[in-house]
């Protein structure tokens, strides 16, 4: 079953030694075998897995199992820590220290360079108050220039282009002069996709690098990538000394094990992740949270942060409180739907939370239409019905259906959706606002006894 989440796999293997009070070489090996499989199935590079397992084994066998902790939990903790070590601990920003910062985007064909160029330009404009210039340096792929120009128009960010009858190096030279003249503080160079073994094209990139003296060279990598990541990342790094990676298409259902591998292979951090086709679907990369996601625990921290960012706090608190008091009604759901619309790409993040009910994907046209339908139904109800939908018997439903010109089936569908919303709000409101972890489980699972070391000393003394 290749697509079970890694955590399922881990828990399965943990179950097997649950009854046993000791970590032995034998049950460790069994667990590690499962972990190895799970990692490989998540596309973590083979060599990385090998080393990972070796390190985990050494560390896990050296651990004492104390207090109420189970051996399996200790191993999960070790695995988690090992993942974090692999991914790095701190989020890494772009280097924006110069008067004019050049960012060079490189990668294989179709990995997401052009889209990511647009996203980063938007990010720098919105969040860092920069004035970026996009440079169309892909002279090979048909319509590559048009693509970037179109994105520039959508973003209202200038694009420097000179067509395709000119060398990419010359475009970059001219773009730099243009940027200086027009006081752009960031220049983002979108280069053509190429294979890492295509020597002439790799030389072109080295030339561009020489000319542009970039502050960042970002390798854009598709998160659907498998084992070949090791060849791609190391070749690009050898050739260009990249400063960071961007992992795209994380909104898919791939487990992104490539992320794990890139840092290990090149030593450079992952700076951004792409989570959708829209131009605001980009996030900073938080290694520890990624470790959580890979372990199947959900990127709850990102979620909470994002919710805080966009959610109208007062409205949200009101809804949360109603939820806690058990008075969450249809009006609240409507309000929540409006909020959700504002959150946009968050629907992607929500899906990462284990046990989250499936929420319908948010698509602007669709959402608008559905929202209108929902509104028309809800507005045909009495205030008490809205507050307490359980009042809705067949007779009332018929009345409402007539009132809004929809069918009873539509109303039933809405009520079902309401139940799901309620469930979702319940789960959201039970997250610990500080850790972003579900308050019921989070604690016991990862708490390490603070007196661990001391106790070990005691034990030794006794001996």
């Amino acid at each position, binding site marked *: 079953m290749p*697509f079970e989440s890694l955590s399922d796999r881990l828990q399965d293997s943990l179950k097997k030694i649950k009854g046993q009070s000791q970590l032995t070489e034998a049950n460790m090996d069994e667990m590690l075998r499962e972990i190895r499989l799970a990692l490989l*199935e998540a*596309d973590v590079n083979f060599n990385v897995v090998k080393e990972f397992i070796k390190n985990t084994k050494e560390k896990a066998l050296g651990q004492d199992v104390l207090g109420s902790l189970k051996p399996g939990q200790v191993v999960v903790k070790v695995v988690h820590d090992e993942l974090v070590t692999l991914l790095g601990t701190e989020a890494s920003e772009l280097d924006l220290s110069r008067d004019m910062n050049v960012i060079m985007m490189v990668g294989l064909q179709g990995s997401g360079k052009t889209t990511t160029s647009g996203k980063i330009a938007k990010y720098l404009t919105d969040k860092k108050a920069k004035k970026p210039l996009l440079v169309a340096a892909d002279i090979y792929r048909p319509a590559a220039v048009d693509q970037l120009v179109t994105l520039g128009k959508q973003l209202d960010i200038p694009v420097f282009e000179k067509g395709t009858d000119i060398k990419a190096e010359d475009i970059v030279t001219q773009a730099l002069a243009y940027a200086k003249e027009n006081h752009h503080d960031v220049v983002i160079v979108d280069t053509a996709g190429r294979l890492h073994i295509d020597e002439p094209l790799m030389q072109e990139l080295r030339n561009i690098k020489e000319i542009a003296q970039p502050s960042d060279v970002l390798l854009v990598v598709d998160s659907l990538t498998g084992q070949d990541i090791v060849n791609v990342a190391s070749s690009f790094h050898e050739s260009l000394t990249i400063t960071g990676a961007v992992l795209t298409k994380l909104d898919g259902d791939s487990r992104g094990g490539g992320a794990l591998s890139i840092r290990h292979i090149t030593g450079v951090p992952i700076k951004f992740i792409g989570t959708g086709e829209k131009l605001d679907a980009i996030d900073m990369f938080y290694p520890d949270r990624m470790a959580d996601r890979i372990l199947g625990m959900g990127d709850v921290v990102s979620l909470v942060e994002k919710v805080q960012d966009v959610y109208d706090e007062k409205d949200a608190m009101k809804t949360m409180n109603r939820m806690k008091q058990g008075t969450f009604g249809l009006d609240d759901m409507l309000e929540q739907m409006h909020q959700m619309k504002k959150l946009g790409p968050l629907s992607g993040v929500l899906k990462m939370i284990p046990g989250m009910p499936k929420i319908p994907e948010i698509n602007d046209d669709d959402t608008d239409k559905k929202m209108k339908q929902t509104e028309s139904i809800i507005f045909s109800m009495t205030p008490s019905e809205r507050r307490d939908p359980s009042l809705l018997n067949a007779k009332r439903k018929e009345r409402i259906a007539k009132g809004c010109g929809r069918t009873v089936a539509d109303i039933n569908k809405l009520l079902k959706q309401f139940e799901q919303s309620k469930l979702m709000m319940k789960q959201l409101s039970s997250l610990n606002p500080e850790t972003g972890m579900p308050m019921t489980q989070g604690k016991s699972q990862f708490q390490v006894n603070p007196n661990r070391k001391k106790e070990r000393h005691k034990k030794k003394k006794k001996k």
Partner: protein
Amino acid sequence: MGIFKRIKDSLVGQSTKQSEKYVAGLDKSRSSFSSKINELAARYRELDEDYFEELENILIMSDVGVSMVMTIVDEIKKEVRLQGIVDPKEINDIIVDKMFVIYANESYMTTKINEAKEGLTVILMVGVNGAGKTTTIAKLSNKLKQEGKSVMVAAGDTFRAGAIDQLATWASRLDIPCVKGKEGGDPSAVVFDAIEQAMASEVDVLICDTAGRLQNKVNLMNELEKMNRIIQRTIPEGPHETLLVIDATTGQNGVSQAKEFSKITDVTGLVLTKMDGTAKGGIVLSIKDELNIPVKFIGLGESLDDLEEFDLEQYIYGLCQNLMGE
């Protein structure tokens, strides 16, 4: 005649011609598959656990799904025991045979495009973002044109910036008609128009481009279903060929791609792109195993003639290349 040859002849029917390019892409040294395996044999004195572990590692590093690798290696081990083989020199045929049989799995493999018995043949290209659909359409159009067919393309990716222009540019280079809609418009409408125009102008083949979509996006998958439906409304047995384009660098997610796209459309074959890189595209073995979808073409570059019919023997050789020494 070896088992391998017999099975191959019975399953593949006519063998496909190998162009120099394909051979060059997969086998830079030009030596034959069996002589390469012989080199491997020289590295190991006996078929011990180390040998099989190396075989397993190499297959995993080629993106063949882990459980699939286990199956393959187990099968090979079993056969080796059965035949009492200890000398690595004698394992060659077994590796090839086993992998061949696992892939073939009693299905009839063809790399021919399934054409309409009469009238218009419709081909739908689907796949995740950035897989190489548009370029593959250009290459396939070129190939069909060279076979003497008239081809029309439909710019069904109305979402990605510049996608329509990209296909239109290829079409004008190929001197074939391209039906376009508005950027941001309904792709089904484009496909509908294209079918009408293709029938009116009596072209042989219509190839429809679609926007890249990740298989877990419900709305986008529904949109694809609608395009499929629109085709079937005019041509009930269409699309005659639905090709799922998979990037050779794709890892384990490839199986999920094949699974989900198959739920929505009747995926009749795979196109494995970017095989001119270092990726081995091993995931197609798992896809064939789980969903019985064969690879029809492989992409070996960015020019119009960089599309080849899939050849299993060459492919298996490519997978085991590392096992056979530098």
